[in-house]
Each structure stands twice: as structure tokens, then as C-alpha cells.
């Protein structure tokens, strides 16, 4: 069975990039490897050359530089959840707490998730709300791509064959802010039927929205921002009525499918309800009241 397959465990980034450059036509980057294991078992992936980046220490680092936080691609969900640097980001913490289960979080990585580009990943909407950038690297170049552009279509990331994800970066929110992620799944720890992240920045009297970001999982080919909801709230006064009315506008930005987890109509309704809940929680966390 696959006698020609090879598995590399480089200890430094340069070795990994060299290997990738040499085998760019057939190599697969492995971080936690859980999604790859499933794809191999199901016959969707036929790669024989694997480059495992989990022994490269610089890819598992979390650091703060100049007001921006940098998370190495091979950082596991568990390390991220436990890191002091992440504790102020409630929108991200909420999602980390509801990703699958302890076993999956101990192996699963943030870079692996972003490279996999599944539209149902819980980690993506919070990162969209934080305006995250994905730093990708090849032997010759480094690029920083806004996450909103990185996921181009269904399970397709803007990643060339000789590039790997190095890290994810985002700025620390300023001013009076709060965030939350709300999800409904068929089973505890399951993939979201719909997931909604909200990040708000409030005016100094804590009664109006200076900025709002809404992003959703599992409602289209990629995770997506809801600019309709955002536009209708930015600049307005905080009220339950405006949140309720604006949340309905989420239907303008999403395109869910009928599947086993629910009909498109149900998911559209659910997206509106979860949008309201995420906004209310985000406002409360920012110190606002309703």
C-alpha cells in the first residue's frame, strides 16, 4: 500500500519550504492532519508526499507585535484557547469553546482550518470580524492576504502549490468593544447548522454603534460578512427594535443550501435569530445595555 509515499517532519521553516518547492506538484502540507486523514480514507485525496509542519516551533507561536496579534499556523485550538493573548477576544474564544470536542481541539490547528477552507468552520467568522490577514510564504516570497479574499470559493483558498500558511494576524480592537459567536448544531460539538459572529464598537456614551461587523458560517460557498446588517446599524442608536429589524437583512447576503441539517428557509430564519443573539451578547460585553 502506497509504498512510494513519503512523510517529512522538518524542524525548521526553510527545510519545509525547500521540500515544498521541490515537490510542489504533489505535496500536501500537514498540520493537525485530521481533515487530511478523513479525505485520504474517503479517497478524495491521493497525495503521496506529506510535509508535516507541526515540529516547526515558530509556526506554533502566539505573539503581540505593534498592537497586532500573530498566531502561527500550526497553533492548536487548545493552545489558542488557553493562551493569555487571546483572552480579550471574546468573539474568538466563544468559537474556540464550541469547536468539536477536546480531542479534536488538541490536534486541530488554525492554519489547517484556514487552508481547508470549509465554509462551516466555526473559527472563520470571528476572524472575519477581526479583519484578520493570512500570511502565506513560499521559498521566494511572503504575502499577506485579507481573510475575506483568502477563501475564494467552496473549499478553495488563495494558496499556490509552493506556498504554505505561515500565520494569521489581526489588530487588537480599540475603543469600547465587545464580540460574541453564536451557533446552532444538530449535536453537541457538531458542525454548525448556522454560526454567526458579531463584533461591535460603541460610541462613548455606550448608546450607539460606531462600528459593527457580522460574519456567518455554513450559509454559502465560503464564510461571509453580512454588510447589509452592518450598514443598517453603523451610526444608529442601540435599541432592541433596530437589532431585530437589521438582523432580518442578513438574508440579503447569504445563500444556504437545503441539506440534512435543515432547509434553506430554516437556515435563513436561524441566521437572523443568531445574528440578534450575537449582537445582544456583544453589546452586553461592551458594557452597553438593552
Amino acid at each position: 500500500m502506497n509504498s512510494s509515499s513519503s512523510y517529512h517532519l522538518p524542524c525548521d521553516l526553510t527545510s519545509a519550504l525547500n521540500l515544498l518547492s521541490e515537490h510542489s506538484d504533489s505535496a500536501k502540507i500537514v498540520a493537525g492532519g485530521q481533515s487530511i486523514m478523513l479525505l485520504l480514507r474517503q479517497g478524495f485525496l491521493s497525495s503521496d508526499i506529506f510535509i508535516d509542519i507541526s515540529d516547526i516551533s515558530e509556526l506554533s507561536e502566539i505573539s503581540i507585535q505593534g498592537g497586532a496579534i500573530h498566531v502561527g499556523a500550526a497553533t492548536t485550538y487548545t493552545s489558542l484557547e488557553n493562551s493569555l493573548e487571546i483572552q480579550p477576544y471574546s468573539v474568538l474564544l466563544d468559537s474556540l469553546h464550541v469547536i468539536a470536542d477536546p480531542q479534536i481541539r488538541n490536534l486541530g490547528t488554525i492554519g489547517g482550518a484556514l487552508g481547508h477552507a470549509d465554509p462551516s468552520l466555526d473559527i472563520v467568522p470571528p476572524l472575519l470580524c477581526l479583519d484578520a490577514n493570512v500570511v502565506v510564504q513560499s521559498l521566494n516570497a511572503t504575502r499577506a492576504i485579507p481573510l475575506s479574499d483568502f477563501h475564494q470559493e467552496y473549499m478553495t483558498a488563495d494558496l499556490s502549490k509552493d506556498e504554505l500558511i505561515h500565520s494569521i494576524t489581526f489588530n487588537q480592537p480599540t475603543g469600547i468593544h465587545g464580540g460574541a459567536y453564536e451557533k446552532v448544531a444538530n449535536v453537541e460539538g457538531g458542525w454548525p447548522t448556522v454560526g454567526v459572529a458579531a463584533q461591535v464598537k460603541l460610541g462613548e456614551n455606550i448608546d450607539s454603534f460606531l462600528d459593527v461587523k457580522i460574519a456567518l458560517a455554513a450559509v454559502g460557498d465560503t464564510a461571509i460578512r453580512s454588510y447589509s446588517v452592518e450598514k443598517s446599524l453603523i451610526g444608529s442608536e442601540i435599541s432592541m427594535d433596530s437589532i431585530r429589524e437589521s438582523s432580518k437583512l442578513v438574508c440579503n447576503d447569504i445563500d444556504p443550501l437545503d441539506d440534512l441539517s435543515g432547509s434553506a428557509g430554516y437556515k435563513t430564519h436561524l441566521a437572523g435569530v443568531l445574528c440578534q443573539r450575537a449582537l445582544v451578547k456583544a453589546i452586553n460585553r461592551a458594557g452597553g445595555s438593552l
Partner: protein
Amino acid sequence: MNITFELNGKIISAEVSPHQPLRDILRSQFDLTGVKVGCHSGRCGVCSVLLDGKVIKSCLLMAPKANGRSITTIEGLSINGELHPVQQSFKDNFALQCGYCTPGFIMATVDYLSSSPSNPPVRDEIKTAIKGNVCRCTGYEKIISAVSNAITSSESL
């Protein structure tokens, strides 16, 4: 490829392919059949083992990833025939029916106990800690009691 790793306290070597999950190696090459086979997709948790002390699902671990690491299965928990305190707690609390899911639940509990759980135990926290494991006999109440008692008695150790 040949890998070397620590398995239940012993350094061993094994011939593995990246296409094989560690679970298959543990069962077929080392007869560690306490590592069970269930859903093949990371949902049921019966194949849970410890990787460097952290619980993972061995059906989702590409076998070469074990290289240079430490793996503990249910067979590696007891010392000189004496049950591990978590095993003893499952026994004392009748926390098994058919027993198929038990090794996975125990491995998840061992990891949970090493992560400073709330003491006195918090029911919701326990449920979150074991949510990656499924008991098809639905014997969750006794499992939660076993985990809870394991936490309380670990205090007195």
C-alpha cells in the same frame, strides 16, 4: 516509513504509511485492542488515546505523527495490575454497560483530570470534557458520577 515512539512506557519502532491512522497500527501491530473501532470519522471517541498526555482520537491521527512522541492507551494506565484511579472510579460507579466506549471515556477523563478541573466538580464542565465520546447504551449519568468522583478522590491523593 519507520517511526520510533514511546508506547505505554516502552520505546518501540513500527513500519507505517501516512495513509494509516495510528489506531490501526496500535491494534494490528501491538494487539492493543482496548483502542476500539467505531465511526472512522472522529465522532464517537472509542479510539481515544493520549498523545504526549493530551487526549486525541487515534482514527484521525496520521500514523507518522506519532514519531518521537509518547502514546498511552488504556492498556498503559494500570500499574502492576492495580487499576488507575479513573478506571477504579468507573468500576466503583458502575459506569459501564456493554463497555465498548469505556476505554475512550477513561482516556478523556484522564486528560481532563490533568487539566485542573473545578473541585468540587461542576456537572456542565464534566459534560464539556467528555462531549467527544459517545455511549450508545446511553449510560451517561453513571459516567458523569464516575468522573465527578475521580475528581473528588484525586484531591485526597
